[in-house]
């Protein structure tokens, strides 16, 4: 296998061997899976823009940086109180904290979850009940198709694990907080999470990626979410890492009959960000909502890639993505829908709306529908525009100053996405977060101070 590794991937080879030596505790099936994934990664290497799925995103900067496995930051003795406080979603049922990809129990708040529910570290679960994961871990992501998924799978070590027994209903969200702490040299983590929701469960899960400090860092995350029959699960991803961070994430969901899964992605931070959402509607009557908001500035690159697979009849999917791009930022919306041969009565809809705030901002939006069934309804639409001058004048003519009016219009545009979030604590947390991040504040650092009184007020609906 090693012979196939080019000089360029040497750092990965060394890291893989180092991890292999440490991870003797992993069960044989997992070691085999990781070996296979690494072999696959070495075979393909990183994708290029010649690859249709990567046409608009050049990952050369990732490929040529010799990332090393991130240090175990849990031993640094640093204090994370402020960061943790700022990233805590009020009303969450528990918060699992990961430092450089590793579970940090002393920083986590495990709350009190109902009997039978598990929420904790994947590494611990592998060590203690490894056999219980075999049915799901690595069964859904396609390591042959996606080099980043292969790379992540090769480096499975830690991440979050959630198990919801049949009929569990959790009103308060479960939160994973992944804190990356850049060092002097470029480092990488491959957080791997697994969420298994049995039949008739209901829960919200939040994955939040933040940086502590500034520097080059590569987070390559994969989450597999298995939703049983009639399960209603919502997943939230928040990317707000440092501008020098690379973040590639994949959410792969597998839905059984009548399961209802929603994925909400909010991309704010990071330098080069790619978010893959790949639901497979594998049972009749399934529903999925893929909702996203991306706000780019400076030279940020944000690529939203969706692959919705309708594999069963009578399923519906909805994709709604709104992008706000300023500066030289570059956004991508690539919405691929595959309707398999037997997936009759599929109802799929896709909408991407974008606001470009500067002449240098750029958006590539690409619908891609592949329909092999003959009785389906699939629609797609995309718009690209600027802040509406008429609306701006209308608001100003009512006394609202131009800066505030502009911010309000952006906030309204962002709220189209946030309003689709059913989990109230998460929605409200994100409304505050996004408001602080919108252009109008030149630093976009999440502070309210720079903005006018009315705009800085909490967004709310009256009546």
């Amino acid at each position, binding site marked *: 296998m090693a012979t196939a590794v080019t000089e360029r991937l040497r750092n990965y080879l060394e890291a893989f061997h180092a991890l292999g030596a440490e991870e003797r505790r992993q069960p044989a099936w997992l070691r085999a899976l990781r070996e296979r994934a690494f072999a696959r990664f070495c075979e393909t290497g990183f994708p290029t823009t010649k690859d249709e799925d990567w046409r608009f995103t050049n990952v050369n900067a990732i490929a040529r940086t010799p990332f090393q496995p991130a240090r175990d930051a849990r031993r640094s003795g640093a204090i994370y109180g402020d960061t943790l406080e700022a990233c805590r979603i009020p009303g969450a049922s528990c918060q699992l904290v990961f430092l450089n990809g590793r579970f940090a129990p002393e920083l986590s708040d495990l709350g009190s979850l109902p009997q039978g529910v598990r929420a904790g570290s994947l590494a611990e679960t592998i060590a203690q009940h490894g056999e219980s994961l075999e049915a799901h871990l690595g069964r859904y992501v396609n390591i042959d198709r996606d080099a980043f998924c292969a790379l992540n799978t090769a480096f499975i070590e830690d991440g979050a694990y959630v198990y919801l027994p049949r009929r569990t209903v959790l009103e308060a969200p479960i939160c994973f907080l992944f804190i990356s702490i850049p060092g002097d040299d470029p480092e990488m983590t491959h957080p791997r999470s697994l969420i298994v929701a049995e039949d008739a469960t209901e829960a919200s899960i939040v994955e939040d990626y933040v940086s502590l400090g500034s520097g080059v860092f590569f987070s390559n995350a994969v989450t597999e979410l298995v939703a049983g029959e009639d399960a209603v699960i919502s997943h939230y991803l928040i990317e707000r890492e440092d501008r020098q961070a690379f973040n590639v994430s994949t959410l792969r969901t597998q839905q059984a009959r009548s399961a209802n899964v929603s994925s909400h992605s909010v991309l704010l931070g990071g330098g080069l960000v790619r978010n893959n959402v790949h639901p497979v509607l594998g049972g009749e009557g399934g529903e999925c909502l893929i909702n996203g908001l991306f706000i780019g500035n400076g030279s940020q690159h944000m690529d939203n890639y969706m692959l919705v697979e309708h594999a069963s009849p009578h399923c519906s999917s909805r994709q709604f993505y709104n992008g706000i791009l300023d500066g030289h930022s570059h956004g991508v919306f690539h919405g691929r829908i595959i309707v398999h041969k037997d997936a009759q009565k599929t109802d799929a809809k896709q909408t991407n709306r974008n606001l470009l705030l500067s002449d240098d901002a750029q958006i590539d939006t690409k619908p891609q529908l592949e329909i092999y069934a003959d009785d389906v309804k699939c629609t797609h639409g995309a718009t690209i525009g600027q802040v509406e001058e008429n609306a701006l004048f209308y*608001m100003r003519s*009512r006394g609202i100053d131009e800066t*505030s009016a502009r911010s*309000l219009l952006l*906030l309204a545009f962002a709220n189209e996405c946030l*309003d689709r979030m059913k989990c109230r604590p998460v929605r409200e947390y994100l409304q505050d977060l996004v408001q602080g991040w919108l252009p109008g504040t030149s630093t976009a650092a999440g502070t309210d101070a720079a903005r006018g*009184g*009315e705009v800085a007020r909490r967004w709310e609906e*009256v*009546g």
Partner: protein
Amino acid sequence: MSILEVKDLHANIHNHEILKGVDLTVNPGEVHSIMGPNGSGKSTLAQVLARRESYEVTRGQVLLNGKDLLAMKPEEAACEGLFMAFQYPVEIPGISNAYFLRAAVNAIRKYRGEEELDAMDFLPLLKEKMRLLEMDEHFLSRPVNEGFSGGEKKRNEIVQMAVLEPRMAILDETDSGLDIDALKIVAKGVNAMRSADRAILVVTHYQRLLNYIVPDYVHVLVDGRIVKSGGPELALELEEKGYVGWAEPGSAAAD
């Protein structure tokens, strides 16, 4: 002092002269109507007064409460007490009617050094004005004008006017597209606002609205100039005879 004083106002859009020397004085307590055929410059006059930036003022002066209106931004004019009900109210998805209006009220209050209103103080005020305009409470949480019918949009404009309590209100063809019932509701809302220290300028093509909002003065605007002024009877005369004889043949349509 007059609330509004327009002197020799000339304005262009895309280098095309629309207003060619308008003179108009509006005093507190008065209701004026500007009537004129299509393309006469009625809407341009309203837009210039509301400070829409796409119009270029080339000559003349406008004073609002003695202050130079033409030096003001749209939001400053609003804070100084000017209000225009739009001919085509704009839809703003994602912002609720109630939130929008409270933001407006508070922007104006802040400008005047008054304390801002919180939602609890503001809501009863807004509900009262909505009842006057016979608008259901569900419009509070609806996005501004989105999905409203034509009549609902126009009524919503008058709700805004009632809440913002301007000193100088301009209605830009508020009657266009309204059925008689909606017209009566709008007129009722406007008439409730008539007061000794407020002035209203009704810009309209038809006399119909003036049956319900009876003006003190009527001005006929033709080809960018006021060609005749008189009392409410002038509106009836125009209704009977039309603008024939006023409009110069071949004058370009501009509104």
